[in-house]
């Protein structure tokens, strides 16, 4: 296997374990520090480009720096989400990089010299960012950037899980299969079905994926199987997510 394939395996394995959502986010950030050449990592979710919270981190400093960006309303993490593209800052004190004076000062005080913010997206639509911090200046090596991009892709899983609290409470973890979960976000039928849910339920793209995955978990089926049932109109999910979660989880098979 090539090195990037091996990196994907290692990051996936590191994220697996008890507890989805916040715990998985913490494990992923920890894995970034141990497997990639960075000193800190934090994962944040962002709604509408403004309301945000930090979900996972490798250390309290990384978490603080992420939260500081939301307090200040500026920083590479917010820019990465707004532009839906990586924001790579190899030297926070480079005058050319002084886009965020408040954030740069606070980061420098905490010994951080470089930050690399990677958008976490669902089908090109950013839902959060993975921030990688370094205590020295300099570009990321290609292999480290590749690893970071893989981690940012994996990070969509805990972010989606956290968007659905019922799901977190309902799902037990012993059956969790990181590979199946990951592939649930790579199969094209899952996105077609999510599109159908957007049209049927008037939900956002993220909510559509959350609903689809929640139904799959609750019925012990793969996301791909549920997607095919939705596409073939054999299954219609209920259109009120605020209902009592027990019947709402069931859907209507015809």
């Amino acid at each position, binding site marked *: 296997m090539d090195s*990037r394939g091996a990196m994907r395996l290692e990051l996936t394995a590191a994220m697996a374990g008890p507890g989805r959502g916040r715990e998985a986010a913490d494990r992923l950030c920890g894995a970034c520090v141990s497997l990639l050449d960075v000193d800190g990592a934090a994962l944040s979710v962002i709604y509408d480009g403004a309301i945000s919270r930090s979900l996972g981190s490798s250390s309290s400093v990384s978490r603080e720096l992420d939260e500081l960006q939301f307090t200040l309303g500026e920083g590479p993490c917010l820019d990465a989400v707004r532009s839906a593209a990586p924001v790579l800052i190899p030297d926070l004190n480079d005058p050319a990089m002084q886009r965020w004076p408040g954030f740069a000062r606070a980061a420098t005080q905490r010994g951080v010299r470089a930050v690399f913010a990677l958008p976490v*997206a669902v*089908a*090109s639509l950013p839902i959060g960012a993975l921030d990688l911090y370094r205590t020295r200046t300099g570009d990321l090596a290609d292999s480290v950037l590749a690893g970071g*991009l893989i981690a940012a*892709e994996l990070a969509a899983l805990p972010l989606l899980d956290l968007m659905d609290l019922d799901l977190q409470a309902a799902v037990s973890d012993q059956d969790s299969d990181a590979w199946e979960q990951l592939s649930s976000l*790579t199969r*094209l*039928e899952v996105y077609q079905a999510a*599109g159908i849910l957007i049209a049927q339920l008037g939900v956002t793209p993220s909510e559509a994926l959350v609903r689809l995955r929640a139904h799959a978990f609750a019925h012990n089926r793969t996301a791909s199987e549920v997607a095919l049932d939705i596409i073939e109109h054999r299954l219609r999910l209920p259109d009120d997510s605020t209902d009592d979660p027990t019947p709402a989880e069931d859907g209507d098979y015809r």
Partner: protein
Amino acid sequence: MNGREHDVVRTFIDLSDRLVEDFDVVEVTTHLTEECAQLLGVAAAGLLLADVGGVLHLLAATSQQLRTLEVFQLQGEEGPCLDCFRSGRPVSVADLDAERDRWPRFSAIALEEGYASVHAIPMRLRDEALGTLGLFGTSPGALDEEELAIAQALAHVASLAIVQQSQALSAGHVLTGLQAAVASRRLLEMAKGVVAESLGIGMDEAFTRLRRYARLRDQRLGEVSYRVVSGMPVQRAALLAELADVADPS
């Protein structure tokens, strides 16, 4: 010039015209697969692109039917396209039925879909493998040398299109370009789902309308897809009404 030479020249002129404009990578590569299938007389063509982790994903294909997409999608796990990607060399299967044991899962689905031959052509940038151009015929048979050369040239054009699109992104990095291209296909699938369900039409027709609308309005397919899936309900309704009215040119 004979008939095919004329068509080949026309195809490359048309593709080069598109690539100097502000293009949409899924739209251009879809067009490329259609031209490729027509030039080489194969039933279906598709482009598989590797993400940063080296996993193949479908970027573009001549058909939007889920069953055809699955024939390509499955090759993220096994099949001639995956072997071609890993080896960096073309893989030609003139008679899939005779070689079905090489890729049992893939062969079963491809044969069931009526495909009898497969040709996988590597896409690369310098030494780096980027993905595979896959060609599927409904009758057994090999491509001749000239046909293989045409397919390889089209695969190179697809590679350049993907790399050029990467330059346009802010980080200017090929890796982020690959990731973005794979993600834009997912966005398109979501948009197809919204349009098909809202207008009560099939996925093929939904794709045709999105594409035609983008071309008529001189917008990127990705921008139109984005507005379809993430717009406010009122704006989405207005856009869907326009998509319902997109006239059929035929």
